[in-house]
């Protein structure tokens, strides 16, 4: 199923205007400075916000069409959404959280093992670390067999090491997923690491020029950020 979206919305400081497509199995990363509208785009794809104009089409379903006044609510879109935090319900333990909307509860066990949080099943969200919470959030999203996976800066609140680890796991997972994945980040290295396609969003508009300005190609194949580099880490155990 391919996701295709044309979005227009008047925001406080600028007008958002974007158009993109994302086929199944591909990860499209939205990147850009904070406040550029990326989260708004994700919320519109999820059905939590309405564009002023445009269309959102998933496969052969019309999720939103301003002209025909169609707006499918988030409940009916069957997607997965991983926020930066707060996706987990504080009153449930991790297992119940992940199993909340699971299609098949047995899969939750598999996912927990995959993400290595099996031993924390009975704990409440406030009793585990940020990284473990985000792992559980991903399990929660995946357990639903989402048709579209949205991740809004899921690892930004975590420390560098955890972030790196989760990034790796996500990249491995990418190949196994049969849905389009939209990922938002402000970290260019992360984007370059994960993306099949990059969509730079600056002040609500696609700005490829920004990308050119911000990365540089070093001799060899790796494109690297012009800005502060991530330090090389050597861990001593």
């Amino acid at each position, binding site marked *: 199923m391919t996701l295709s979206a044309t979005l227009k919305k008047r925001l406080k400081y600028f007008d958002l205007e974007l158009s993109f497509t994302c086929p199944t199995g591909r990860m499209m990363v939205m990147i850009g400075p904070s406040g550029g509208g990326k989260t708004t785009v994700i*919320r519109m794809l*999820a*059905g*939590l916000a309405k564009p002023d104009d445009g269309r959102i089409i998933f496969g052969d379903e019309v999720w939103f069409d301003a002209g025909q006044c169609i707006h499918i*609510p*988030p*409940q009916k*879109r*069957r*997607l*997965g*959404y991983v*926020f930066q*935090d*707060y*996706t*987990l*319900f*504080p*009153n449930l333990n991790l297992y119940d959280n992940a199993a*909340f*909307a699971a299609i098949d509860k047995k899969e939750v066990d598999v996912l927990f093992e995959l993400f290595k949080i099996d031993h924390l099943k009975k704990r409440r969200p*406030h009793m585990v670390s940020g990284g473990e919470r985000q792992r559980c959030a991903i399990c*929660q999203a995946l357990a*639903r067999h989402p048709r579209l996976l949205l991740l809004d800066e899921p690892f930004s609140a975590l420390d560098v090491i955890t972030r790196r680890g989760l990034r790796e796991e996500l990249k491995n997972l990418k190949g196994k997923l049969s849905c389009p994945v939209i990922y938002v980040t402000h970290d260019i290295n992360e984007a370059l690491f994960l993306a099949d396609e990059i969509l730079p969003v600056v002040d609500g508009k696609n700005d490829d020029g920004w990308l050119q300005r911000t990365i540089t190609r070093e001799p060899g194949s790796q494109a690297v950020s012009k800005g502060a580099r991530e330090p090389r880490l050597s861990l001593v155990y």
Partner: protein
Amino acid sequence: MDYLALYVTIKLALVTTAVLMVIAAPIAYLLAYKHFPGKSFVEALIYLPMALPPTVIGFYLIILMGPRGWVGGIWESLTGGSLLFTFLGITVASIIYSIPFAVQPMKAAFQKIDRRLLDAAYILGLSKRATFMRVIIPNSVSGIAASAVLVFLHSIGAFGVLLMVGGSIPGQTKVASIAIYEAVEMMDYSAAGFLALSFIPISYAFLLLVNRLNEDSRI
């Protein structure tokens, strides 16, 4: 010792609390999450009983619930009985008197819930109603409990309103606070004293409960 009056008081408080928990939740939900034109006027109206002297509330309730009033008149034509001077009548009065104390803590508790949690619930497929029952309420338990306790305590102390609309009928509308007042009038100070004393352990126990609930929620 007027056990009957104490019984009426506690029965009234329990019924009021039970009814208000159900009525106040959707009102608190509306005030916490929805915006609509005239919202501030509606909100002020709901909090009005908190600002008015109880005798004023009682005064207008007599007019409304009496046989010539809107509410009272309709009630009489439907059931043939009067609304005033009955247990039902003082329950209605007690509910109106305590609405702000029910709505306020609930609204605060609902507002404390991060909106993203609600978004997450919608995305996982929960309808707004299911979200209310399975996400909002379980995560506002301490606020709801505080609301219940507040309403209960406020109800057992109701005096001015019930003095106006109750008619002090033993077993039906004569609550402990009125019984104390009448005992004093009759110069039966020991009876008044005993009844008054009985309020203290009840109120104290409930206040301890509120404290406990507040602490629990701070984990």
